[in-house]
């Protein structure tokens, strides 16, 4: 059976599964729609959180980025896992104890102000929308390569599918679909990795294979990799830093606190029955995430080595262009891989020197997707990888859309505009809000063209600088006032957006970067994607300074903080 037919069958089967689950578990009440009824087992919630959390960026892009950055790519590995430690200790149990439906609801109550709640809604929408656009792009890319349709069509198919199961099922449908999606994506990631590890090192566990010797030799895989990349003039794989130590520090910190501050992850912890479940559920989530995240560096290193050895089989002996393998041709047609015969010898000279390098383009994103083809794995594995990439993108998109919809229908509509609407009307409103969010995200996935690419990292910076500090101060301080919290959120998200846009362009439109994307202008050499931690520091500083000069919070807030710190007496998440 040819690859295309097989891919249609595998992807089609997974989609049928997701839709079947959605129909079986549709939500009938706001409680089911927002928090899945509050009765999800912590291990199941951990698995759903893992799928919710691992996006197209984790599945498709991350190993590719590590493959070309080497050690510097560790910022993603540590940053995107370390955040769960903060979440488990500093946020999840207390927010679960509070027992409400949304993140802005807590901020509004703790800071005794509807304005604070409104500001939190705006921050939540800004970071969730920027993030969901990146997922829509991932869906478009995966469809266009594997189903051989164009990017726009792929995006529309993705939108319709998400619309169907997220709008129908709400949190309940999303939870069970995400569990299925986790199973699909983790198999799709680990099976090819095991095959490749076995081929290269004889050890089927990629985590051990990366530290092993190559099959039939005494040379360690990583030593060989260091040698082949440095021979061609690239930085040594195992020690190449990402710009500077300070930048790596800031980047890791931004991703960690961004992880802990992303509302679609936080609301997953509202679905478990008890406070103690919120703690253990974060642990389970990280276990399921760690399976992929400890495999990723092995995929990265092995894919880089395979790529280098395909292009340069013997030192100084480059592959002839006419003898290039099929996967090379496939990816050339997508434009993600490009060759230019600069010295006209018909061979592929690959080098770190831009003057003589003939591999003029190797997109990061193809490393995971092309990996099974490079390693000559059977077609069903390639089809599974396509289904896995789609599962990763769709599960995250659905979680984000729910966070957006609940902020609009529960916080804006029920909380501020029309407090007396019936439960049924609120449920319908959240479905309409979700549909509108899907259309809006789809539109921004297409226009402006450069926007989707930059959004994922930006979303973390925004969450790190706005929502995370507000939640932290809400739980750990009794003195931060409403004025302080509002000023902090506005200052934090403002300074981060300003810094990113001044270097990357307003809405990433080229030519509107008013300072230019030049490292000389960077604040202490911190790249825009790593700036969230600075925004968070600004948020904390402004909030405490303003709180010093404004009237103290009322006594009821002190009691609220005392209440959330003690686990006993948590009720199922409710809305009054």
């Amino acid at each position, binding site marked *: 059976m040819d690859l295309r037919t097989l891919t249609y069958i595998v992807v089609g089967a997974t989609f049928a599964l997701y839709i079947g689950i959605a129909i079986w578990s549709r939500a009938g009440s706001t409680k089911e729609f927002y928090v899945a009824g509050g009765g999800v087992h912590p291990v199941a919630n951990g698995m759903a959180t893992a799928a919710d959390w691992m996006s197209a960026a984790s599945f498709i892009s991350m190993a590719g980025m590590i493959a070309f950055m080497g050690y510097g790519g560790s910022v993603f590995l540590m940053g995107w896992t370390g955040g769960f430690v903060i979440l488990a200790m500093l946020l999840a149990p207390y927010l679960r104890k509070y027992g409400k439906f949304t993140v802005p609801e807590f901020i509004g109550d703790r800071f005794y102000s509807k304005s604070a709640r409104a500001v939190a809604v705006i921050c939540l929408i800004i970071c969730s929308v920027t993030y969901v656009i990146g997922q829509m792009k991932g869906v478009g890319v995966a469809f266009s390569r594997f189903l051989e349709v164009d990017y726009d069509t792929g995006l529309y198919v993705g939108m319709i599918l998400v619309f169907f199961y997220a709008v129908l099922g709400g949190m309940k449908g999303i939870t069970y679909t995400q569990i299925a999606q986790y199973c699909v994506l983790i198999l799709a990631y680990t099976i090819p990795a095991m095959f490749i590890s076995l081929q290269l090192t004889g050890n089927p566990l990629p985590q051990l294979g990366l530290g092993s010797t190559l099959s039939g030799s005494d040379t360690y895989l990583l030593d060989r990799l260091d040698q082949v990349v440095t021979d061609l003039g690239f930085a040594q794989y195992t020690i190449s830093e990402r710009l500077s130590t300070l930048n790596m520090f800031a980047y890791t910190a931004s991703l960690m606190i961004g992880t802990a501050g992303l509302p679609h992850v936080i609301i997953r912890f509202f679905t478990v029955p008890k*406070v103690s479940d919120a703690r253990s559920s974060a642990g389970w989530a990280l276990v399921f995430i760690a399976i992929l995240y400890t495999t990723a560096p092995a995929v990265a290193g092995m894919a880089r080595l395979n790529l280098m050895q395909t292009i340069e089989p013997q030192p100084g002996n480059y592959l002839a262009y006419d003898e290039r393998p099929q996967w090379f041709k496939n990816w050339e047609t997508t434009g993600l891989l490009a060759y230019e015969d600069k010295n006209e010898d018909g061979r592929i000279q690959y080098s770190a020197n831009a003057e003589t390098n003939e591999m003029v383009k190797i997109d990061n994103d193809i490393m995971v997707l092309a990996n099974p083809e490079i390693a000559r794995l059977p077609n069903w594995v390639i089809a599974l990888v396509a289904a896995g990439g789609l599962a990763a993108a769709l599960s995250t998109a659905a979680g984000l859309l729910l966070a957006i919809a609940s902020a609009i229908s529960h916080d804006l509509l029920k909380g501020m505009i029309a407090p007396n609407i019936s439960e049924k009307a609120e449920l319908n409103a959240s479905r309409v809000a979700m549909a509108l969010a899907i259309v809006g995200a789809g539109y921004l996935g297409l226009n402006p063209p450069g926007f989707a690419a930059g959004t994922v990292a930006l979303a973390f910076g925004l969450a790190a600088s706005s929502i995370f500090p507000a939640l932290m101060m809400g739980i750990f301080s009794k003195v931060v006032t409403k004025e302080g919290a509002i000023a902090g959120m506005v200052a934090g998200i403002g300074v981060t957006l300003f810094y990113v846009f001044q270097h990357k362009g307003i809405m990433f439109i080229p030519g509107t970067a008013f300072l230019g994307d030049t490292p000389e202008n960077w604040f202490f050499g911190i790249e825009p994607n790593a700036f969230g931690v600075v925004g968070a520091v600004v948020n904390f500083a402004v909030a405490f300074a303003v709180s010093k000069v404004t009237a103290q919070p009322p006594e009821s807030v002190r009691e609220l903080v005392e209440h959330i710190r003690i686990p006993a007496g948590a009720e199922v998440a409710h809305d009054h």
Partner: protein
Amino acid sequence: MSKLTEEQAAAYWKRNLALMIKLLVIWFVVSYGCGILLVDVLNQIQIGGYKLGFWFAQQGSIYVFVALIFYYTRRMAALDREFNVHDDE
């Protein structure tokens, strides 16, 4: 479930914070410490094919993170029982 006095609540919170700080120090040391700041020193040590600093950055820190959360969960469950504020039915 009994209601805590103000002193008991304060004591419970203090114990929670102490545990949290202890674990966050470990969290910081394995990632920012071993993975970033001390990476060059640790890279002098080799375990199998892994340079130790590189291993912490790409593997070890993640394993420690998982262990930290489960340790916290267990210790907090014990603390909750000690103060009789656990939420088991």
